[in-house]
């Protein structure tokens, strides 16, 4: 059997929005220069007060996701969420009567590329606001740039707590007033993992995670929470293979030799698919009692029918069945009808970002960036994920969601059943982190 998560071919060039050509230059007299400068200043002032596109044209938002490489499915899922929210908003009167447009760019999972794309969205396309990001490493690189560009950025997936930890709180903290996150952070997610660990009959723990900040932060937070919550756990083995490793076997073998009771793994994207297949071949799921997948319900695995083994634990940033509210249920049904799959958290995070912008722009009466930042700050909102509020550090107070992987015939997909939602607000995280110097990011 051949399995794949390849995207269709010609999808790479997303920069197909038309750019204005440079005008031909004639010698400029002093008077003409002053006139032009005056007009330019007037336009700039109008821009400041009324937003990039004026008050009648469409609201233009810029999005940045991974659309190629090992995690391209995340970007594709986000694009679905965007498309879904966009038609929902535009079919119902738009934002204050204005259509919403979204320009989506590929970060290629690289901080440098993301920064270039975001600068181009702001400086060439004059977007009114930004959202997206799939990788902690990318988010860490982008956050300081956002503060320079002075435009709001709603992160919808990248999980590092340091982008919602105010600069100065910790040496890695890069949080600032312009950066928000509507999805849960690694600090919230891994709190749930420690709560799961509390209940499991497992004392020896190991990890296998990607060799960059996300892999290490996951393990650091897990150990800190276990310590803070008094979980009887020893941390016996750790492996950090490079991103996009094609053969995990030596790393798997090393963990199996250490023979831990349970493993927490934040591998994600196609890496997770590769890992699961090779782990099965090596007898991993027979030998290791419990495997906790912190990015397990990401995108590819639940939707392609060759998913995580049933009975293991996984977390998600959004669950299509919980909370059992009218909003969530109707979102799930309508999304399923449109795309034939359950909405993943990346779709939901992107979907909600558009609705957050709609609410903020309508409430502010325009797209002035600082007014939008004021609106987002402390905003209370609800969506499919449930009710939440933006904390002092601009992090949404969404729950940590962990459950048991169970295949559901009705939806043709893995779901979490039973599933637990752990309140992961500022006080809870702060207490659970105990003496650790890691920031709560909320």
């Amino acid at each position, binding site marked *: *059997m*051949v*399995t*794949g*998560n*390849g*995207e*269709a*071919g*010609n*999808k*790479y060039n997303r920069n197909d929005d038309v750019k204005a050509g440079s005008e031909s230059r004639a010698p400029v007299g002093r008077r003409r220069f002053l006139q032009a400068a005056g007009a330019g200043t007037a336009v700039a002032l109008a821009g400041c007060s009324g937003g990039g596109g004026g008050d009648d044209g469409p609201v233009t938002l810029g999005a940045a996701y991974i659309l*190629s*490489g*090992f995690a*391209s*499915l995340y970007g594709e899922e986000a694009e679905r969420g965007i498309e879904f929210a966009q038609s929902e908003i535009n079919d119902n009167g738009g934002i204050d009567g204005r259509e919403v447009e979204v320009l989506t760019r590929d970060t290629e999972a690289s901080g440098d590329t993301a920064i270039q794309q975001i600068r181009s969205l702001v400086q060439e396309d004059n977007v009114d606001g930004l959202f997206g990001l799939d990788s902690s490493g990318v988010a860490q690189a982008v956050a300081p740039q956002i503060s320079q560009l002075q435009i709001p950025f709603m992160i919808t997936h990248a999980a590092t707590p340091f982008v919602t930890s105010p600069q100065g709180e910790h040496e890695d903290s890069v949080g600032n007033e312009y950066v928000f996150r509507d999805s849960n952070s690694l600090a919230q997610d891994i709190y749930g993992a420690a709560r799961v660990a509390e209940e499991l009959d497992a004392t020896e723990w190991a990890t296998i995670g990607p*060799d960059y900040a996300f892999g290490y932060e996951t393990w650091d937070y897990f150990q800190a929470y276990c310590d803070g919550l008094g979980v009887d756990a020893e941390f016996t*083995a*750790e*492996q*950090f*293979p*490079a991103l*996009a490793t*094609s*053969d995990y*076997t*030596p*790393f798997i*073998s*090393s963990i*199996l*030799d*250490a023979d831990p009771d349970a493993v927490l793994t934040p591998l994600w994207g*196609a890496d997770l*698919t*590769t890992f699961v*297949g*090779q782990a099965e*071949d*090596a*007898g991993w799921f*027979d030998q290791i009692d419990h495997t906790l997948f912190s990015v397990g319900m990401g995108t590819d695995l639940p939707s392609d029918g060759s998913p995580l083994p049933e009975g293991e634990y996984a977390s998600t940033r959004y669950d299509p069945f919980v909370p059992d509210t009218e909003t969530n249920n109707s979102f799930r049904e309508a999304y399923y009808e449109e795309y034939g799959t359950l909405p993943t958290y990346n779709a939901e995070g992107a979907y909600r970002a558009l609705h957050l912008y709609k609410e903020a722009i309508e409430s502010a009466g325009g797209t002035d960036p600082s007014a939008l930042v004021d609106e987002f700050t402390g905003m209370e909102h609800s969506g499919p994920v449930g009710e939440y509020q933006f904390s002092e550090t601009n992090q949404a107070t969404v729950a940590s969601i962990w459950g048991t992987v169970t295949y559901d015939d009705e939806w043709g997909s893995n779901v979490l059943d039973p599933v637990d939602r752990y309140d992961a607000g500022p006080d809870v995280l702060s207490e659970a982190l105990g003496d650790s110097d890691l920031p709560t990011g909320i």
Partner: protein
Amino acid sequence: MSLSSLVPLIGISDVVIGLSLGSRLFLIAVGLSLIFGVLGVLNFAHGGFYMLGAYVTLAVVSNVVDNFWVAAVVGALAVGVVGAAIEFSAIRRLYERADSDLDQLIVTFGFVLVIHETVRFVWGSGSYSIDPPDVFNFSVTFGGSTFNAYRLALIGLAVAVLVGLWLFITRTYFGSLVRGTSSDREMAAMLGVDVPRLYTGVFFLGSVLAGLGGALSAPLQSTSPALGDQVIIDAFIVVVIGGLGSMSGAFVGAMLIGMMQSLGPQFISAGSIAIPFLAMVIVLLIRPEGLFGGIGE
């Protein structure tokens, strides 16, 4: 942690995994070494050939014929044809140039990009995987650890390729032409050897080996456009350690690197990827011609 407490951690499966990683590296490195030994070309595109072999095999298995072995042969030959076409159309024009080495590097690197982007265009940038052929698709449990039987098959195939190549080079007429031309190209030409055709033939053979490496490794790894970039670096290390142009050197070098890749994670949790580089530096310092040094051996 003392050495004695570390030793028991190394199980049979670690050795099997190491040798299977080494086998994969041998298949790519031996073609690289052959092409360098005879043509003097450092073929950067060799990793791309390896990747292409894996993709063609996957495509044939899923769309044309549901037989892995047939698909692997088709994959290897298809890559051979691509390699020969590249040699014939581009690399051949560079042999006589004054700065030939640099030009060859740049041209073959250009083909790295062409192959990479072509694969992305045709198959997308996601990753694919494939099950091992049914006959070897079962788990072997040995000494408490488990591995797929196909790993043993891959090791056997690599040894078979080594023996076959050795017989081919030492016992056949074509082999003697190859050996003669690699030691003195001008003399061979004067004695009537059609050197350009021989070069294309050797490039074809080297490319087939790269394609075969990719094809046979496909069941043990995920195949994505990044595959070629990863493997070419390891292959260069193998060739430098083993000795440029040496087949037995490529085999021993590949097995050494394979074992380092397998056992490295036992000792350090991150960055074990650097161990082969360290080994290369040591070999270059102590024995710059490589363990089995000597072009043309």
